[in-house]
């Protein structure tokens, strides 16, 4: 099965400024893929290139096994842009019908699908209201419904939770889980790392328009755990001995911090400390948050 998204050295130059230097990545079918990076890293430009809105200066990319811009592939793609602006003089019903028609959907299927999705995003009572009367959150919801009309194989969501209240954010997260369960691949561009953390299978960090790191979030819990050990009576030699289980060992007053490969080593670490006659008060494993990794990856200055 072809990858949902495959790019090779995708590049976009505006004048003499390279917005995207050379993007190479693969997104597997059926996964939720997070696209992370500091502001100005080229995330939106990259997404627009994949969607055929911006033509790349060089490089190649394919969606669902077809080169970008292929209309057959676009029939199976959904897109919720950032700064969503839609025809505000249409009603929500008309807006969804319009986009369904442009997708070439059959009338009956489209009507059924529209009602289904309006229900799902909680806008059924507002179907005949013009979009100009909608709040930002309601527009985001109708935009999400629009992106899912054609039961897409691949959905691009650009900052889908921006401007949403916690209820709306939860809704978006739940909808993402549901469509993922139906086998849809989701390409998610978001600043909200906590969102990414709970929704994504894998993330790519991009900086200056290049992928600097790809991470499986499922493995995050295991290979990126930092431990804070509150301990006294621990000699320097005994401290060094901890290096067989972890790295970046630091003593900070009565705390010892270290990063371990997996929390399965913690019982062994405990036995070791006790055998060294140290007094152990607590051992607290802290899963490294995506935010920690983000800052570690792009640097504190955000790569400026």
């Amino acid at each position: 099965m072809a990858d949902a998204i495959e790019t090779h050295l995708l590049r976009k130059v505006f004048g003499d400024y390279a917005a995207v230097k050379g993007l190479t990545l693969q997104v597997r079918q059926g996964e939720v893929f997070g696209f992370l990076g500091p502001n100005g890293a080229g995330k939106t430009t990259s997404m627009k290139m994949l969607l055929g809105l911006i033509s790349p200066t060089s490089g190649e990319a394919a969606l669902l096994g077809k080169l970008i811009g292929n209309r057959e592939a676009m029939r199976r793609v959904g897109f919720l842009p950032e700064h969503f602006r839609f025809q505000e003089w249409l009603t929500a019903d008309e807006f969804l019908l319009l986009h369904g028609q442009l997708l070439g959907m059959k009338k009956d299927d489209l009507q059924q699908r529209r009602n289904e999705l309006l229900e799902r995003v909680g806008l059924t009572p507002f179907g005949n209201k013009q979009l100009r009367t909608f709040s930002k959150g309601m527009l985001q919801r109708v935009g999400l419904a629009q992106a899912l009309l054609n039961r897409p194989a691949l959905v691009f969501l650009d900052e889908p939770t921006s401007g949403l209240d916690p209820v709306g954010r939860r809704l978006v997260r739940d909808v993402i889980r549901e469509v993922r369960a139906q086998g849809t691949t989701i390409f998610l561009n978001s600043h909200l790392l906590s969102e990414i953390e709970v929704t994504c299978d894998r993330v790519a960090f991009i900086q200056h328009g290049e992928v600097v790191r790809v991470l499986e979030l499922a493995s995050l819990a295991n290979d990126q755990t930092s431990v804070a050990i509150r301990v006294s009576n621990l000699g320097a030699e005994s401290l060094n001995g901890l290096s067989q289980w972890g790295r970046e060992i630091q003593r900070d007053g009565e705390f010892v911090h270290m990063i371990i490969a997996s929390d399965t080593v913690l019982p062994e670490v405990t036995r070791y400390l006790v055998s060294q006659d140290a007094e152990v008060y607590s051992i607290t494993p802290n899963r490294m948050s995506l935010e920690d990794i983000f800052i570690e990856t792009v640097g504190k200055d955000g790569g400026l």
Partner: protein
Amino acid sequence: MSAISIIARLTFREAIRRRLMLAGLVLGIAFVILYSIGTHFIFGQIAADTAANMPSQMAANIMKAESTNAFMMMGLYAATFLSVAMAALLGADTLAGEINSGTIQTIATKPIRRADIVLGKWLGFIELLGLYVLLLCGGIVLSTFIQSGHIPQNLLIGLGLIYMESILIMTITLMLSSAFPALATGGIVFGLYGLAFIGGWVEQFGAILQNDTAIKVGITTSLIIPSESLWRRAAFEMQTPLTGTFGSPFTTTSVPSLLMIGYAFVYLIVILVIAVRIFQKRDL
């Protein structure tokens, strides 16, 4: 339903929903009413004067027809100008505005050709302009007929040419709108229209004074933008023979050839193709 017709219907509906049609309708009707009130008194005066001063009934009839026609041409000239303004207003914000706001993004990522978007909008505007030209020009002609019984010759050809002028301006606007922001587009279009207008005058005076250079200058401007020559051909088709000798912007002394009309048609198609090409190539 094809993508072109979906976009065309959307364009039409947008004009209705955003009250553009309503504004056009109200102002158009006001325009026709004003014309009718004005000409009501003028035609009455003309009828009285010609009956009193002309040596024979036949001469009186000819004089009456001539002056009625002259006033109708004046009204049609104003209607043409309003149609051109409407064409520029419709086209200026359409692509530029939607690119700027990002509305175009969900449309352009659907499985349709970019050409469908441009052509759909173009067809939608053609429908709207058709209604507008029919309201304004049709209103003037009907009002004149009811008041004086005068029907201009070659009416359909004349109205068709006026319609074509508005389509030409709309197409140029659409092309510019695919490349420039709305305000710049509007500015350039009115600049070009002004150029054509002045060029038309130069050519007219050249014809009256029989100055070849002036006529050539006029023809050259018509080649750059053939909008005014469409009006002048329309005026030539509809005006009475005597009216043509007055020399005014409302009438025509130097008649654009059929070749120029053919050129305008080809020009329009080429501009449309360029509009599509620009829109296909640009980043959204």
